[in-house]
């Protein structure tokens, strides 16, 4: 009987070992043992419920009704995340306000919200594997199987969508409150709007006259990527896992954040950042230099600016592909992508015997500086994404300059037509 009691407690505490196999197999033939085991398991459950009510109040039941992603790698962050999600009503189903925590919610079984989630974390630490299965099952339960197959929601608009429009797959849409945003959506704000990241905590205030592209959703709802085409934003960013930080890019810089408040401004020729709280990594895409910025620190990147009439600081490159020194229809001056950022200068000289329209096209996510000189006179010098110029008869010098970021090539094209 003593042996059996030992076995029963091992079953109850989950501490059976391989050396118990033989004894267990013998005991299992004994109906008295089985009956005692059943009762002991139930008593064990009652004790568990009494001493540790959190255990049976499985916080993850709350996931039945809405998909909620958590970062399980960091216990302190995890608790904050759960509480934030509870506050954001993302975990609404089984939670009720408690007397001690009127804002931070606890469920009906447990004394306080924080203890409950701490416990849930500890339990999940012990059984990490099953979380994935459960989360997947929870997804299915919400009827979100189709959701999983369709593009993933990266972020949402807030309630106030006035002065905002969304470009999706080439079409401009009139947004609705809380409209979901997907990868490659372009958000254009003519007045300040707020975007909520899918992590449920991160808020991005997009200033007036700004354009933001949602680039990709993060893994498990964290680590989303955004590209600020133009304008300003202020982002309050939830703690992100080190292996999947949230990333904001502009044409000049990349901001890698693990959880902070930043202000980011992107203009054609510059990008500025200010860190209000926390710490970021600031990658200068022009020079490939990285800097860690902390509270109160700011940084600015200026694009290459070519002063008129001043000699270019870069070594020029005669573009061989421009046959006879004259850009022809469809001509390109291309450079393949290289791992390092590079400054590029392409120059050609040509003579026109008639008036033409010259269109410069390029689809690169960085600006190109175009300058046109006729004789010794600088006719045009500006940064451009697309340019149509009228060129009259005579000798011309055309120079293209760009700071080509790492991993991107340089491939502007010309189209030109005669003007009758």
């Amino acid at each position: 009987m003593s042996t059996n009691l030992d076995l029963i407690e091992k079953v109850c505490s989950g501490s059976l070992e391989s050396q118990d196999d033989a004894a267990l197999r013998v005991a299992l033939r004994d109906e008295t043992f089985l009956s005692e085991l059943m009762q002991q398991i139930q008593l064990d459950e009652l004790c568990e419920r009494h001493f540790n009510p959190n255990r049976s109040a499985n916080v993850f039941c709350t996931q039945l009704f809405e998909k909620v992603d958590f970062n399980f790698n960091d216990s302190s962050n995890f608790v904050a995340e759960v509480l934030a999600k509870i506050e954001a009503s993302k975990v609404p189903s089984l939670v009720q306000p408690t007397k001690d925590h009127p804002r931070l919610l606890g469920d009906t079984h447990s004394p306080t919200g924080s203890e409950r989630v701490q416990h849930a974390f500890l339990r999940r630490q012990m059984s990490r594997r099953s979380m994935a299965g459960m989360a997947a099952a929870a997804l299915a339960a919400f009827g979100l199987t189709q959701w999983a197959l369709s593009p993933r929601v990266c972020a949402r608009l807030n309630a106030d969508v006035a002065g905002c429009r969304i470009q999706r797959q080439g079409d401009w849409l009139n947004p609705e409150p809380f409209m979901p945003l997907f990868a490659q959506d372009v958000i254009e704000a003519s007045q300040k709007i707020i975007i909520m990241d899918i992590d449920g905590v991160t808020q991005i205030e997009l200033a007036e006259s700004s354009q933001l592209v949602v680039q990709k959703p993060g893994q498990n709802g964290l680590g989303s990527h955004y590209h600020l085409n133009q304008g300003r934003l202020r982002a309050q960013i939830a703690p992100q896992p080190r292996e999947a930080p949230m990333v904001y890019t502009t044409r000049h810089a990349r901001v890698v954040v693990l959880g902070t408040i930043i202000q980011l401004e992107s203009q054609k020729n510059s990008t500025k950042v200010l860190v209000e709280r926390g710490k970021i990594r600031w990658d200068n895409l022009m020079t490939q230099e990285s800097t860690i910025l902390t509270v109160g620190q700011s940084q600015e990147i200026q694009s290459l600016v070519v002063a008129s009439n001043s000699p270019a600081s870069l070594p020029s490159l005669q573009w061989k592909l421009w046959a006879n020194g004259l850009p022809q229809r469809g001509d390109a001056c291309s450079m393949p992508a290289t791992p390092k950022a590079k400054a590029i200068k392409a120059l050609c000289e040509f003579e026109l015997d008639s008036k033409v329209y010259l269109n410069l096209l390029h689809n690169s996510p960085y600006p190109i500086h175009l300058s046109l000189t006729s004789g010794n006179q600088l006719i045009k010098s500006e940064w451009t994404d697309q340019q149509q110029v009228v060129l009259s008869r005579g000798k011309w010098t055309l120079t293209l300059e760009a700071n080509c970021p790492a991993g991107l090539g340089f491939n502007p094209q010309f189209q030109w037509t005669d003007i009758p």
Partner: protein
Amino acid sequence: MTPSPDRDFYAEFVREHHSELRMFIRCLGATATGADDLAQEAFVIAWQKWSELRQPEDALKWLKGISYKLVVNERRKNARHKRILHDDLTEVLLKRASEKMEEEHNPTESLWDQHQTAFEHCLQQLPLHSKELLRWRYENQLSSQELAERRQVSPTALRQMLCRLRSKLKACIQQGSLS
């Protein structure tokens, strides 16, 4: 066919039956953490397939049937991924539960579940050192090795001590229910 429940209803359903379902799953030989996960999965499946439930009053029995199948499936899994304690143990317990499910309307041996109040009362009757031992075991989650060191006894003796303590509680509860 039962119409799909609304979320509030289902939340209440989960709240009401979660503990009992967890206990049922543990009685099929699931680990303590595995029972949480399996209960969760059973609720999720029930939510998805609610329209297949013929009699709403049989919902708990149906839920237990789902859990039963989940535990059966656990046995087929790779050992590392199993959420059960021991194959042979689960095999016997599944067979036992299957027979009970056929015999009874309520397939769990849930005598104790109905006596929560008596349990609380009986717990208070225990001597201080016994309550302390239970607190260390359940609240502080100490292993039998750690408990044995504190009590300066062998782990085996400690495990027997815990079983006897629970048996005392059982006797007290039964006495209370008889009276």
